[in-house]
C-alpha cells in the first residue's frame, strides 16, 4: 500500500525526515507518533502529495510520488480518505454535501451520492443533521462528519492527522471506534498520526515512532 525507500522530507528549510525506509501493507492499522515538530504530520502530508519529497522513492496506492503530475496527484487523492485535526469541512456546504464531496469528485451522480451520504450519516449516528451546516455541530460531531466523508467513496487508504486532537474523551472514543470498524470490517488501510495512542485500543496495530528525523517501528 505504502512503500518508502530512503525518503527525505523537509519542512521549510528544516530537514525533518532523513532516509526513512518502511512499508505499510494493505489492511494495516498504523499509528505514527512522535513529539511536536518531529515531522509526523509532514510525513503524512507526503503520502497525499501535499509535501514534496526532497529525495528517495515513495509509492502510495500504486502511485509514485516523486515528480508526480497534477493529473496523477488528483487520481491518487481521489482514492484516499483524509481526516484532519481541524476537520476541514466546507462551511458553505451542508453536512450531506460535505460527505458527498469525494463522491461528486469521483463522478458519482447526485442520487447515488446522497444515498451514500445518508447511509454514512446513519453509520456515524448523525442521521438527523444532514441538512445542518458544520458550524451548527459540536467538534465531535464535525469530526464524525469528516470520518463519514473520508469513508464515502470506499477508499483503500485512510490518512488521519491527529483526528482526536481537538476532541473530548467521549468524542475521541467514537472516532477511534469508527476508524477501527473501517479497518476491521471494510479492510481499509488506516494510517493515523497522533500524540497519544488510545489505551485498550483492542485491535492489533503497527506503530512508527519518529525521533530526530529517524523512523523506528515498535
Amino acid at each position: 500500500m505504502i512503500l518508502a525507500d530512503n525518503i527525505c522530507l523537509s519542512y521549510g528549510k528544516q530537514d525533518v525526515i532523513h532516509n526513512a525506509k518502511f512499508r505499510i501493507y494493505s489492511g494495516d492499522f498504523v499509528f505514527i507518533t512522535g513529539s511536536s515538530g518531529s515531522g509526523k504530520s509532514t510525513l503524512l502530508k507526503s503520502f497525499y502529495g501535499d509535501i514534496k519529497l526532497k529525495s528517495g522513492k515513495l509509492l502510495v496506492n500504486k502511485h509514485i510520488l516523486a515528480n508526480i503530475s497534477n493529473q496523477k496527484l488528483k487520481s491518487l487523492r481521489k482514492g484516499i480518505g483524509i481526516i484532519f485535526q481541524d476537520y476541514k469541512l466546507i462551511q458553505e456546504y451542508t453536512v450531506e454535501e460535505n460527505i458527498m464531496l469525494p463522491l461528486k469528485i469521483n463522478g458519482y451522480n447526485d442520487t447515488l451520492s446522497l444515498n451514500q451520504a445518508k447511509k454514512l450519516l446513519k453509520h456515524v449516528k448523525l442521521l438527523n443533521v444532514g441538512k445542518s451546516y458544520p458550524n451548527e455541530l459540536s467538534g465531535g460531531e464535525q469530526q464524525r462528519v469528516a470520518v463519514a466523508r473520508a469513508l464515502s467513496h470506499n477508499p483503500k487508504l485512510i490518512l488521519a492527522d491527529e483526528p482526536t486532537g481537538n476532541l473530548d474523551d467521549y468524542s475521541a472514543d467514537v472516532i477511534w471506534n469508527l476508524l477501527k470498524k473501517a479497518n476491521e470490517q471494510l479492510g481499509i488501510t488506516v494510517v493515523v498520526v497522533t500524540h497519544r495512542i488510545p489505551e485498550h485500543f483492542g485491535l492489533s496495530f503497527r506503530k512508527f515512532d519518529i525521533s530526530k528525523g529517524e523512523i523506528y517501528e515498535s
Partner: protein
Amino acid sequence: MNLKRFISFSIPLILMLYIFVIYLSITKIVTNYEQTINKDYSIVVVTSSPIVQSKIEELPSVDLKEITHLKRDKILKDIKDDLSEGSFSLLQKRLPYFYTISLKQFPTSSKLKKIKQELKSVSGVKSVETFSKDHNQVYSLLLLVKTIVSVLFCAILIFTFLVISNQVKIWFFEHKERLDIIKLHGGSVFYGAKPIIIIALSSSILSSIIVIGTLYLLNHNLSFIFTPEIIEIILIHLTPFNILELLSIFAISLILSIITVFGILIKHRLR
C-alpha cells in the same frame, strides 16, 4: 453575497455592451452615409488615349468600383452643326477621352489627394477632377466620432476585463479554504470554481438581454427620447440591428467573461 458578485460582474459588462452598441450604431451610420454620398461622388479623368481598366486597378490607393467611359459622340453631335467639316474632323482627332471613376468607399481628403496623384501618374492622363460637393466635412466629423467611440470602447473593454478579473481574484481569495479542501480530495480547480463560472456566464447572458432589451425599447419609443430631426436621421442612416449584430453583442459579453474567468482559473491551476 452571490447577488453582490453577480451585480459587480454585470454592471461593467452592461456598460461595455452599451458602448459596443454605440460603436456599432456609429459604424452603421458611417457606412450608410458613405454609401449615400458615394452615389453623388465621382472622379473625372481626362486622357489623351483610351484608358486600360487594369492599369487603374493596379493603383494602390484606388479601390475601384466602376469606370465609365463618357461617350464623345454625344458631345460631338451637339456641336457638329456649329462647326465646319475641317474644324469638326480636327476636333474629333484632338478631343480627349473622358472617364468617370467610382470608388467602393468614400475617400477621406488625404486619400483623395493620393488617388489624384496616382491617377495623374498613369500614362496618357491629362487631368483629374474631383467633385465631392459638401460631404467632406460631415464625413470627417463622423469619422472622428467613430474613432473616439472605438477608443472609448477599447478603454471600456480593458476596464471591464480588469474589474471582472479583480472580482474573480477576490472570489478565489474568499474561497481559498474551500478550494484547498476540494484539491485535497482530488478535485480540480474547475470543479471548485463552478460557482464563479456560473456567475460569470449567467451575468454575461443577463447583461446581453438587458442591452438587447434596451435596444428594443429604444427602437419602439424613439419619439419619447429623440427630437423629430434626430429620429429622421436615425431612420435614414441607422438600419435596425440584424440577428448577427445582436448575436455579436451576446458573443462579446460571453467571450470576455469566459476569457477572464478561465484565464485566472488556469493561472491558479498552474500554481
